[in-house]
């Protein structure tokens, strides 16, 4: 039963912490661009305001897609360990692949619902997002595969425990760099915000969203960010107590925001060529080092 409480705690942290961080991120971007920016609680205002408005719906698949997206994201956020074995809701089910593929449910739900709105901008955005997935997932999965091979486990909380001697950031620095580049793609941050691209395709998947649908998908996005960054922190930045975890989370987020606030957007094939070039090569190099036993 404690697992369930921990899962609820996961969701609460995901919601409040990440929404706060989003606000902070907006503030940082503004300061980089020499603006003042919104207050740190702006994202809370956005979400609750969107939720309270009367929306338009484009049929049952639109509703179902939004529910599936949010449901999938909630399910994933509920099983991710937060930086230590103690904060692992379900120690038997925190397998990396399970988390990775559970995560895909939310993406599929969102894709389906948004294309169900019948707007071509949404379809274009979704196909772009899927193509981008093909880009960033591959280097990331290779790095994670080499790590699982090294530690002989795919369970996230065991991976955290095994880093007691030294963070993976230091054991496999190449892998950590590759995973961070992939993380930027996962977050859809600036050089990789091809799927949303407000100037080109009118925010892509989000084009037909109104009122509470926008609010619900914002919450889904928040849970996704939580899962993505938590996985990175767990796997590369070692364990520690809960506050340590939040601090590391914050640092990774600020780094991502800083990078994204100064870079322009890639085109879709530029993005693929980029990911399948240096990051994928480095991922294989990392795997080779692991095979040879040349880790720091």
């Amino acid at each position, binding site marked *: 039963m404690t697992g369930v409480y921990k*899962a609820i705690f996961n969701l609460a942290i995901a919601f409040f912490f990440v929404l706060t961080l989003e606000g902070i991120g907006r503030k940082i971007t503004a300061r980089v661009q020499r603006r003042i920016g919104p207050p740190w609680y702006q994202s809370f205002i956005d979400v609750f305001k969107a939720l*309270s*408005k009367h929306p*338009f*719906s*484009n*049929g049952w*698949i639109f*509703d179902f897609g*939004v*529910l*599936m997206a*949010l*449901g*999938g994201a*909630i399910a994933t956020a*509920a*099983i991710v360990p937060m930086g230590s074995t103690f904060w692992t809701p*379900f120690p*038997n*089910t925190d*397998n990396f*692949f399970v988390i990775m*593929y*559970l995560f*895909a449910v939310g*993406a*599929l739900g969102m*894709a*389906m619902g948004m*294309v*169900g709105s*019948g*707007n*071509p901008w949404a*379809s274009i955005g*979704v*196909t772009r997002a*899927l193509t981008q*997935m*093909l880009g960033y*997932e*591959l280097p990331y*999965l*290779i790095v994670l*595969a080499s790590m*699982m*091979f090294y530690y*002989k*486990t*795919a*369970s996230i909380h065991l991976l955290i425990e095994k880093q007691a001697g030294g963070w993976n950031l230091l054991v496999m620095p190449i892998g950590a760099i590759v995973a961070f580049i992939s993380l930027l793609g996962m977050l859809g941050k600036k050089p990789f915000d091809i799927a949303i691209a407000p100037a080109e395709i*009118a925010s892509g998947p989000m084009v037909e969203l109104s*009122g*509470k*649908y926008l609010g*619900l998908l914002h919450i889904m996005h928040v849970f996704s960010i939580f899962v993505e960054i938590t996985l990175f922190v767990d796997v590369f930045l070692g364990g520690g107590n809960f506050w340590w975890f939040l601090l590391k989370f914050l640092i990774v987020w600020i780094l991502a925001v800083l990078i994204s606030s100064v870079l322009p957007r890639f085109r879709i*094939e530029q993005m693929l060529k980029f990911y399948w070039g240096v990051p994928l090569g480095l991922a*294989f190099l990392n795997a080779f080092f692991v*095979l040879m036993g040349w880790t720091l």
Partner: protein
Amino acid sequence: MAITLISILALSVAVYFISKLSWKVGAVINALAGAYLMIYLFTLKVGSSEVLGTLFGEKLLLTYTNASFYFSFVSMLVILAVMVFAIKWLDSQKYPSAFNMFLLMMTAASLGVFFAGDLLTLYIFWEIAVLSSMLIVPMGKKEARRAAIIYAVMSATGTYMYLYASFMIYSRYGNFNLAEVAKDLANDPSMPFKVTVYLLLAAAGIAKSGIFPLHTWLRIAHGNAPDAFSAVLSGQLVKLGSYVLMLVTAFFPTLKMFQGLELYSKIPSPNYFLLALGATSIIVGTLMAIKQDDMKMLIAFSSVANGGYILVGIATMDAIGFEGGILHVFNHALAAAIIFMAFASVVYRTHTTKISEMGGLIHKMPITFISYLFAIISLAGIPPMSGFISKWMIYQALVRKGMFVTAFIAFFGSIGSFLYVFRPLAGVFLGQLPKKYKDVKEVPAIMWIPMVTLVAISFIMGVWPFPILKPIEAMRADFAISPSVKIADASNWLVRGVTGSWNPVIVFNLFIIGFAIAYLLYTLFPKPKKVDLLAPHKEEGAPINIYTGGEYIYTPDLYQYNTKMYAGFERMYEKHPSWEKVLDMLCKFFHDLGQLVHGWFFRPSPSAYAFWTVMTLLIVFWVRW
């Protein structure tokens, strides 16, 4: 067993004549025969053996093993579903009676392949299955005749190699019996012989399950065959190939046979060769599927990719990899059968297979859509459908063995599958409905019931996979692949891998809870106002202006995004080398050679005829035949 198989074969001929009177009665008899066979499988005892007859002094043996049970069960699931589906669907077909006959004949023959206790029996039933299915293929589209020929030639390439290897084995050991041959092969000192026999036998499986060099028939045969039969082709017949591949890699003790040939991570190089072919199929199948506009060809290429997964899983010869490969047989069989039946339903109503000509069918055919949706979730390997479990197992094996390149390809195929399964989802079912499909209706219950049943089975096996894992564990024990490892742990609700475990029930419950919370939030906030896809669109020809940048739209059909969906990505491999073109060149070469000979011998002039007659007579006299 022998009597049942032969009587079903005889019944298939009877079904033809009954169908001539009323094809509906024939189809119902087919379905009843299928149901009977399904029950019959559960009454047979594992390990029982029977003599079918004798051929040239050789006993034709039937043995019922755990593998026979598993593969026959999966086959019968698919075939039975299609048989029920066909009861209504056949009214769109030109030759229903022949379809009924060949379908039942093929069913009996495939079961014969799985029951076969020796190489010769397997070959005989194999050829019956190939021939009867080959005769169904040309009943489809216009191009289907050519498809049937290509299918037959590709299949024959494999089977002749298989037959040659069988005779090699016979001349060496004087035996066709599978169990005896396995023992003999394990003790044979000659490595070249073992490798040759292994690869030649595997060729039949490679041709049948659409593995790389012999995969081109899948696109053309699955794409052009009668729509419901594509479900059998992709869901069941291809699995005959997987069965043979399993026989040669796992039933024959390859790890013992090829001792000293280990290439990497304790996998012998002949196995590794097959594994590389499987990996190539994953790449080829995925990349080609992404760019298809014909939905049936798209899933045909996905069958190539999934055949690759099965082969990769089995060829690792690792406990969890083997189980993953075998479980993938079940998962892909069900997913492909559901998808092809859903497409058959769509074609039944719209008469086209082009994604670019459709759209918005979801509001017209919701049940078909739901079946397709669940099937693609399984095919893409997303929990809680059963497809995830087998992919997870294969990844486990690849990661554990440190096979990063193969793992990379497996990941690529998996994420690529998101791309290609989404294409029909968005292009056919979602988006704007073209005007010509305004009056399309959902298919009748007899057609959607089999689809929904298969979806339910796949779903239940995704949440509680232990019943289907049981025969697979038994198979693994039979083949003695690390028998000490236990993967299905039903008492703790866990699926155990080498690098950690997971609990499918918890994952499913999380889903339910996730949805429940999402639904709660959804109901908590203001109710939506329901609008049409093109909100202000009142009557025909009225101008529409939403999110179009000031342009007016008069035809909603043009507002559907379903051609060149992944243009950015497709452009990157536009100029890819094509194996089909290589085969076409080969084809042209032989054709030209034939023309040359033809030109020499059949000159349209009497003098040439006289010349060849004289030459022939001279040679005959000279050789003194």
